[in-house]
């Protein structure tokens, strides 16, 4: 897969979410994702994600592959962190509905060959990020739910059927 290509609409992206950006109840039970998990930091031009279908197998095997790759990357992953999965087309559409035309492209980096980015995400639309966190990009898997282990992403993506 060539760097800079748009990810297919039916595919998915995974965002690492540290504990501080997970939504909790008053007893610290994790119940979702906060909008700030999708906010660009100062100086960032794009949001880092991992391309789920880069990894082979069933969806759960792909999630495990993505989580292991993130654990093995420079990012690491806290024991109480989580991973939010969203469908590429749904994320696009949610942004379009609020008049933002984003791009989700494959951009491998040395420590994560499945790395991709969400570009042109607005900095000033808090409602958009909240809707993403509440509905569109809200499928959450906790780090503690994934088998121990880590493995760098393979050099090439899984063949697509």
């Amino acid at each position, binding site marked *: 897969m060539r760097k800079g290509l748009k990810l297919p609409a039916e595919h998915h992206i995974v965002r690492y979410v540290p504990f501080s950006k997970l939504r*909790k109840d008053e007893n610290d039970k994790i119940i979702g994702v906060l909008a700030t998990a999708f906010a660009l930091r100062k100086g960032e031009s794009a949001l880092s994600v991992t391309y789920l279908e880069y990894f082979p197998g069933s969806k759960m095997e792909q999630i495990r592959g993505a989580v292991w790759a993130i654990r093995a990357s420079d990012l690491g992953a806290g024991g109480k962190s989580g991973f939010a999965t969203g469908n590429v087309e749904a994320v696009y559409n949610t942004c379009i509905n609020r008049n933002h035309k984003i791009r989700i492209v494959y951009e491998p980096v040395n420590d994560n060959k499945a790395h991709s980015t969400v570009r042109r995400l607005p900095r000033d639309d808090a409602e958009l990020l909240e809707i993403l966190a509440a509905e569109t990009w809200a499928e959450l898997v906790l780090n503690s739910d994934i088998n121990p282990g880590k493995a760098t992403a393979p050099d090439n993506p899984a063949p697509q059927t």
Partner: protein
Amino acid sequence: MSEMRVLDTKRGKPLSSFLNVPTNTGSEETSELVDLLTRVAFNLSPSTMIQQTGFTTVGKTGTLEEQLYNARAACKLQIASVAMHLDQDWRSRFFAQLDNLLDFDEWDDKDLPVTDTSFKTLLRLLLLIRAKRRPGLGATSDGHIIAAWTAGANRLTIECLPEDQIRWIVIYHIDGERESAAGQTSIERVAEVLSPYQSKQWFSR
């Protein structure tokens, strides 16, 4: 780790020794809090305490681990200064939430620790709205603490800025339709701006 215990600078003893309160509970946190509460009992201002104890505006000095430690302590100091307004169980559970939020092992090292100015706004907000339910806590990358209340699919999220300013976002479902709204205001106007969304659903038990 820098020395955080509050000392009488002339005698080099913990100030708690002057109040006849136990510090040998085996809990480092308890000892720390006893010292902090002692400061409150001596009626020293937070700024004086911060100056004298080495607490700094976080995000500026020390390693990340030290900054997070300082942030936790600074937040607890502020809570201690208004302890009389907070139920003890509420307060101790809130402390536990802060400990979890500002845990070095979980913190993304690209994020700034929570600032004392942001936490001050949160504390003043909580005292103002007198919420029975504590919020879930979170933080932005630039050091603002987040208070989140969730009632089913209805979500209220408040980002605390310095100087009593907040950014609020609501996701609210009515008759199967989702409404969303967001804005920035001062804590004094929170009740008014949230009134169309039945804010009791988030704050009441």
